[in-house]
């Protein structure tokens, strides 16, 4: 059999690719799933069709009230605290799942606040992921690392995230943070970003996106989200599709708005807005 050098090299190349590729495909297709009968949800878990919040900031009086909710969330989820970094770096690299800001920045497209009463203008609101019914972030994620659960939570799979940050570009609410550095690292003074680890929850790693996940790990064992628990009634949690839930009752009685509703994302976080004696 005569074969010239070029044909030989082509043959070797194709065989190598086929060999490696074939093995990879074969391994990937190997039956590796758990049988359906082996896994089930925790019987304690809270079930809903569309979890949401109603936020009534008139119940939050002092800075302490806001801090309680933010700290509850960030501490149990091992969210790194970058406040030890120089300000211009902290602004760029901070990671936050829940935070507070004023009316103008929470609702930039809301009715003009120029002649609104000043108490409302200066009041702080809570901002978090809106767990939209039509989330733009889920639409754009190339690996389904962010996806919508049956109960309405927009979930984040840290194992699959490739860190492309398309979801951050798509989210109209700036709800997402990226790990620009190792969250288990230290600032320039040697202080770790995660001061006290919650050993029952993982941290994240460098290079993945994270955000509020509506305390899915607490819902799974029958507990309400952490921020709700310590909010003193300022954040009410419930199933928006259950007409008898507390959130639906409030929505029926009070006037509420959502952030940037004109974009069609259908947020699940409602904010109670009042005027005069109801505001502030």
């Amino acid at each position, binding site marked *: 059999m005569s074969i010239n050098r070029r044909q030989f090299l082509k043959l070797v190349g194709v065989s190598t690719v086929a060999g490696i590729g074939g093995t990879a495909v074969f391994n*990937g297709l190997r039956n590796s799933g758990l049988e359906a009968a082996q896994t089930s949800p925790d019987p304690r878990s809270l079930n809903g069709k569309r979890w949401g919040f109603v936020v009534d900031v008139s119940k939050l009086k002092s800075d302490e009230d806001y801090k309680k909710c933010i700290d509850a969330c960030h501490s149990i989820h091992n969210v790194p605290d970058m406040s030890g970094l120089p300000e211009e*770096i902290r*602004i*760029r*690299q*901070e*990671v936050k799942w829940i935070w507070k*800001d004023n009316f*103008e*920045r*929470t609702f*930039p*497209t809301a009715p003009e606040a120029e002649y609104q009463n000043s108490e409302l203008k200066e009041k702080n609101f809570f901002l978090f992921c809106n767990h939209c019914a039509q989330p*733009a972030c889920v*639409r*754009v*994620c*190339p*690996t*389904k*690392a962010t996806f919508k659960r049956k109960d309405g939570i927009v979930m984040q799979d840290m194992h*699959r*995230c*490739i*860190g*492309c*940050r*398309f979801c*951050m*570009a*798509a*989210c*109209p*609410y*700036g709800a997402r*943070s*990226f*790990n*620009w*550095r*190792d969250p288990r690292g230290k600032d320039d003074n040697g202080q770790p970003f995660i001061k006290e680890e919650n050993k029952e929850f993982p941290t994240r*790693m*460098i*290079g*993945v*996106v994270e955000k509020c996940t509506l305390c899915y790990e607490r819902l799974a064992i029958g507990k309400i989200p952490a921020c709700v628990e310590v909010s003193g009634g300022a954040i009410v949690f419930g199933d928006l599709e259950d007409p008898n839930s507390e959130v639906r009752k409030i929505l029926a009685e009070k006037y509420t708005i959502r952030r*940037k509703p004109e*974009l*069609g*994302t259908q947020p699940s976080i409602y904010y109670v807005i009042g005027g005069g004696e109801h505001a502030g």
Partner: protein
Amino acid sequence: MLDKALSGSKRYWTWIFILLAVIGVAFLTYLKQFNEGLGISGMSRDVSWGLYIGQFTFLVGVAASAVMLVIPYYLHDFKKFGKIVILGEFLAISAVIMCVLFIFVDMGQPMRITNVILYPTLNSVMFWDSVVLMGYLVLNLVIGWTTLGAERKGVKPPQWVKPLIYLSVPWAVSIHTVTAFLYAGVPGRHFWLTAVMAPRFLASAFAGGPALLILLALLVRKFTKFDPGTEPIQALAKIVTYAMFANVFLLGMEFFTAFYSNIPGHMHPFHYLYAGVDGHNKLVPLMWVSSIFAITSLALLVFPGIRKNEKILAFACAILFISLWIDKGFGLVIGGFVPNMFEGITEYWPTLPEAIITSGVWAIGLLVLTVLYKVAISVRETA
């Protein structure tokens, strides 16, 4: 044919080694970024894409521009482009490789890149972008190599290449349209939410790519025995002129819509980019340079008498390329992120490591381009 890239003049090898040196330094810087995180770049929670993605967007345009040679030559038998089509196809290969590399260096978890293939998500534009880019790379590799190989043997290319060439025409349009979709389908970012994003991308691609090709053709004529000829270059210059007019016109349309509608969200990014907001004006000088270069290049290109002068043509193409590089490779991305989703301003400027890594990717692209052009020209010279 690749062996032709292994023999060259002293100048050739000096150029290769300079490129390798840049690549080496950039690679070490990338390792630093891999270990310490993308935080060593200038990107932030508010401006989560920066120079890398901007360069990716710009280079997809350069890659698509090969179609401006393929259409006249293969679809309309414009024989004048016969000698330089291969230069366009090889430029496309080099540009797509740079695109892929820019995506890779921008990823937070690059080792997981196979997740895009393992978990295909059909509703994600980014998934489709990776599919069409890879397809375009394969297309151009096969077409370019086969046609060049046939030329070397002195025969016509095999028949099966023809359908691939025809396929590459809509495919080239698709790669840039899909890349435009990355921006134009995202709600909430006023600078990007415009139907003319894809048309503007294509117009600027068909201006910038051929402009670069003109410069490369002139360089090739200067440094090698291969002369593409004056007529193909003039034909390309006409394409550049018309495309650039379309691009500047569409940009004007963007300005009109934003300012005549008077909608604050639409106007703010333009205010930030071209005038600065609240003292934040890092990008203003750059954007004005881009605009002035664009108008100047058009003024030089629109008159055939001036266009015929190849020295002025080279200058016009250079400033046009720079203008588009600023506009698409930088201004476009930043304009979508500033002001942020709370109408606040967090500015962005690339850091030194970011610039070094960017230069490294460009050096890799230039290396690929040099090697491929060396092969093509060597084949021509010995033919």
